[in-house]
C-alpha cells in the first residue's frame, strides 16, 4: 500500500497560495482608478481576448491571470446581475453583492479543490461623485478588499500600486488619469528597470462614465484612444462605444429558413 504522507493544513494552504501567486505573476497587469468623470479601467493586453468588460449599468469587471478561469467568473457575474435586475429592479444590482458572490466562489474553490484559480479580479461601480465610487479587489483565495480609489493587479502589483499611490488624484481629467495608468503599467518590465512607453496597441481601456444615464460602460478604442493617449481631450459623445460590435452583414439568403445560402441555388 502506498504511503500516505501527512501534510499540515497550513502547508497545503501555503502551497496553493504560492501556486496561484506564481500563475498570476506570469501574466500582464491591470489598473483601475477613479477620475473626475468616472472610473477608468486599463489592462496591458495585446490580444483581442478581453480582460475588462461590462457587468451591468454602473458595474464593470477587470481581471488578470488565467483567461479561462476569469472568463467563467465574468459570465457568472453577468448572469447573476441580469437575473437580479430582472427579478427586482435595475437599481438593485450592486457591486457589493457581486463582490460577495465572487469572494464566496473563489474562497470555496481555494479551500475545496486541488487547484486554486490563478486570478485576481476587480469589481468596480461608478457613483455620482468620485467618493461614491466602489472598487473591490477579490484575490485567488477569496479575500476581498475595498480599495481607496485606485488599485493595481497582476505580477508586480505593488510596484505599480506605488506609482498610483503617489500621483492618483480623484479630481483629475480623463487624459491625466489615462497617462498615469499607462505610466504605472509601463513602470515595470522594461530593460534594466527602465520604464516602457505603452501605445494604444498594447492597452485595453474602458471607462464607467459617471455622467451617462443607463449603461455607463464604454470601451475606448481606435481614434478616441490614440487622441486621449496624446493628452488631448475627447468629447463625451465620441467617448467609445457600448461594448457590442455590430452584426456581420447579411448576404442574400432568405432569413426564414435555417439553410445555408448555397442550398438556394
Amino acid at each position, binding site marked *: 500500500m502506498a504511503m500516505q504522507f501527512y501534510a499540515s493544513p497550513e502547508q497545503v494552504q501555503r502551497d496553493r497560495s504560492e501556486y496561484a501567486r506564481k500563475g498570476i505573476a506570469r501574466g500582464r497587469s491591470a489598473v483601475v482608478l477613479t477620475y473626475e468623470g468616472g472610473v477608468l479601467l486599463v489592462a496591458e493586453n495585446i490580444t483581442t481576448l478581453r480582460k475588462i468588460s461590462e457587468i451591468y449599468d454602473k458595474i464593470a469587471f477587470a481581471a488578470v491571470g488565467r483567461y479561462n478561469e476569469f472568463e467563467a467568473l465574468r*459570465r457568472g457575474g453577468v*448572469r447573476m446581475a441580469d*437575473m437580479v435586475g*430582472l427579478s427586482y429592479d435595475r437599481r438593485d444590482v450592486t457591486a457589493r453583492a457581486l463582490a460577495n458572490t465572487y469572494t*464566496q466562489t473563489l474562497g470555496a474553490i481555494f479551500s475545496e479543490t486541488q487547484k486554486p484559480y490563478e486570478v485576481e479580479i476587480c469589481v468596480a461601480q461608478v457613483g455620482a461623485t468620485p467618493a461614491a465610487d466602489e472598487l473591490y479587489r477579490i484575490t485567488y483565495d477569496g479575500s476581498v478588499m475595498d480599495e481607496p480609489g485606485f488599485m493595481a493587479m497582476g505580477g508586480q502589483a505593488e510596484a505599480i500600486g506605488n506609482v498610483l499611490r503617489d500621483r492618483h488624484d480623484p479630481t483629475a481629467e480623463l487624459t491625466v488619469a489615462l497617462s498615469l495608468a499607462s505610466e504605472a503599467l509601463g513602470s515595470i518590465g522594461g530593460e534594466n528597470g527602465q520604464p516602457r512607453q505603452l501605445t494604444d496597441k498594447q492597452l485595453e481601456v474602458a471607462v464607467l462614465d459617471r455622467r451617462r444615464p443607463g449603461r455607463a460602460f464604454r470601451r475606448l478604442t481606435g481614434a478616441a484612444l490614440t487622441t486621449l493617449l496624446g493628452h488631448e481631450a475627447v468629447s463625451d459623445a465620441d467617448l467609445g462605444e457600448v*461594448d*457590442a460590435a*455590430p452584426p456581420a452583414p447579411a448576404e442574400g439568403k432568405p432569413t426564414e429558413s435555417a439553410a445555408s445560402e448555397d442550398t438556394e441555388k
Partner: protein
Amino acid sequence: MATGFDPSGRLPDFFTSTSTSSFTQFLSQAAPELLPGRRPLPPGLSADIAPHGTTIVAIATTDGVVMAGDRRATMGNLIASRDIRKVHPADAYSLIGIAGTAGIGIELIRLFQVELEHYEKIEGAMLSLDGKANRLAAMVRGNLGAAMQGLAVVPLFAGFDLAPAEGVRPGRIWSFDVAGGIYEETGYEAIGSGSLFAKSALKKRYRAGVSTEDAITLAVEALYDAADDDTATGGPDVIRKIYPVVMTATAAGTHRLSDEEITTVAERVVAGRHENPGG
C-alpha cells in the same frame, strides 16, 4: 439573493458554464419559475382574468421604422387602464410592442430586453436583427400552453438593421402568431383587436418610401381609425392629454416621441377629423 445558490455561497456550475449565451436558456436551469410559460395553469379557459392590451402599428420608412400603440387595456367591457404603455425599446436599435394578455406581454418584453442585453455583454457583439426576431419567436412559442388557455400574447417586432443584405431596406418589421410563427412584413403591419381597421387605413395611405415624419402621422391616424371602430382601442384622450406612445428606430438609435412632439401630431390629427371624421 436570487434562487439557485448552494449553502457555501459559491456560484453553481451553470452560472459559469460556457454552453450558452442566451439568458432564457440560462434561466431555464437557474430559475425556471422566472420564465413565462413554465408555470402550471389550472385547467379551463382563463381569458377574462387579466387585462388585455390592444392595437399596435409599425411602419417601415426610408430611414428606419416607426411603431405606435394606443394606451388602452381592457377587461371584458371595462377599461382596465387608460395609459398603459405597450411599445418599448428592445435594445438600442429595435422596438417591441405587444397585444394580448398585458401581464404576460410586459413580462415577455422585460425578458426579451434582458435577453438582448445579456447576449451583448456575454459575447461583446450584437445579435443580427434576424437573430433577435428568431429569438423572440422562440420565446412566444414557450407561451403556447398558456395561449391555448386564453392567456395569449403576440408581439410586433421592428428595428433598424445595422447590416442589411444588399437591396434590403434597413427598417424591418416582423409579426408573430401564438404558435411562434414568424413572418417578416413589407411596409407596415398591425396587431391586436383594432388591427383590422388600422391595417385597412394603412393599406390606402401607406406608400413605400414614406419619411419618418409622415409615418408618425400615418401611425397616429391608423390608431385613430382603429379606435373609431374597435371599443378595445383607445383614441386620443384630449381631456386627459393621453396620446399614443410612438417610437422610432433609425441609424441614430431608438427614440420615444416626447409629450410635446406627440401632442402636436395628435392634436393635428384630431383637428383634421373635426373637418372630416373619416380621415
